């Protein structure tokens, strides 16, 4: 699919469909951002506005301008936009990290810097570990004193998907959805306070 074909295909998407896609993309981006450890890279100040809107608009723009190719055989429109937004987020974390490195001016500090830079590519794995550690802390803090949530968190840690959680707790999906939303809200508040 060349740029023109991609534009024609995108121009054919109706507003109602865009609205659904943008809503889903917003939820995905919002959730991804909420649990990022390096939130500074995605702050309003750094991005010049609402971070969620920044990534949603940016992903849409990169597809319309043809800067990113829509791999239709592999991804739906929503999935492709998620890939682009995810890549933009990683890129901004990388930029923020290297900006920190470049800010060091003296010779001694520059040597320290080079060492940091060499470790840089491994940092992503470290960031993942840090993110998981913080998330575990958040789960513990948010479920503390709440029997239902504590039980749910245990099932969450022991399961791979919704069906397994339902089986483990002998709850129906509706019940799991309610508790998941309750826990999500508490965790979002926890991270909001942490990132402020």
């Amino acid at each position: 699919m060349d740029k023109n074909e991609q534009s024609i295909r995108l121009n054919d998407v109706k507003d109602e469909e865009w609205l659904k896609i943008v809503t889903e993309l917003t939820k995905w981006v919002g959730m991804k951002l909420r649990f990022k450890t390096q939130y500074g890279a995605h702050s309003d100040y750094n991005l010049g506005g609402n971070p969620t809107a920044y990534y949603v608009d940016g992903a849409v723009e990169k597809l319309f301008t043809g800067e990113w190719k829509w791999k239709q055989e592999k991804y739906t429109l929503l999935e492709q936009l998620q890939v682009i937004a995810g890549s933009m987020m990683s890129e901004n974390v990388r930029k923020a990290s290297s900006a920190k490195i470049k800010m060091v001016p003296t010779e001694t500090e520059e040597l320290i810097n080079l060492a940091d830079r060499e470790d840089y590519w491994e940092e992503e794995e470290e960031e993942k570990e840090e993110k998981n550690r913080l998330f575990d802390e958040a789960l513990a803090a948010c479920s503390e004193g709440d029997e239902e949530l504590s039980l749910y968190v245990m099932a969450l840690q022991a399961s791979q998907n919704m069906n397994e959680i339902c089986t483990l707790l002998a709850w129906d999906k509706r019940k799991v959805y309610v508790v998941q939303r309750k826990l999500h809200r508490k965790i979002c508040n926890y991270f909001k306070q942490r990132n402020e």
Partner: protein
Amino acid sequence: MKNEEKSLVDRFIDLSLEAFEDHEDEFFEIENIDKNTYLTERLNHIKRMRLKSISTVKKNQNEKQLHMAKEQIKQILESGDKVKIGKLSQLFGSNYAPALYRNLDKLDKHDIEEMFHDKNILDIIEGLEKPDKEG
């Protein structure tokens, strides 16, 4: 990525996306975003992108058609076929006949655009194809 390979955070996000599927309002409220204003702004952005894109597509199609027409004119002129050349003059009118007899390569994009000005390029391409079919 398979679920077994996903981190707990990513699995949690997947579960939340499923749990909030019919509860968008609650999600926007948690995120402290005014849903209607936010979605209107996103949709306006898409509309702006769409307009730009339509204009670019039209421009590209027009350039492609201009190139096709120019190539056809070149072929006709090089063939020396008087019937076809006559047809060409008919299509463009007498004002542009002298230009057509010069080497077309010497005409730049603006000259060609000027020749095609207020003419439907598709009609011209079709018109140029007619002598071939008749011949």
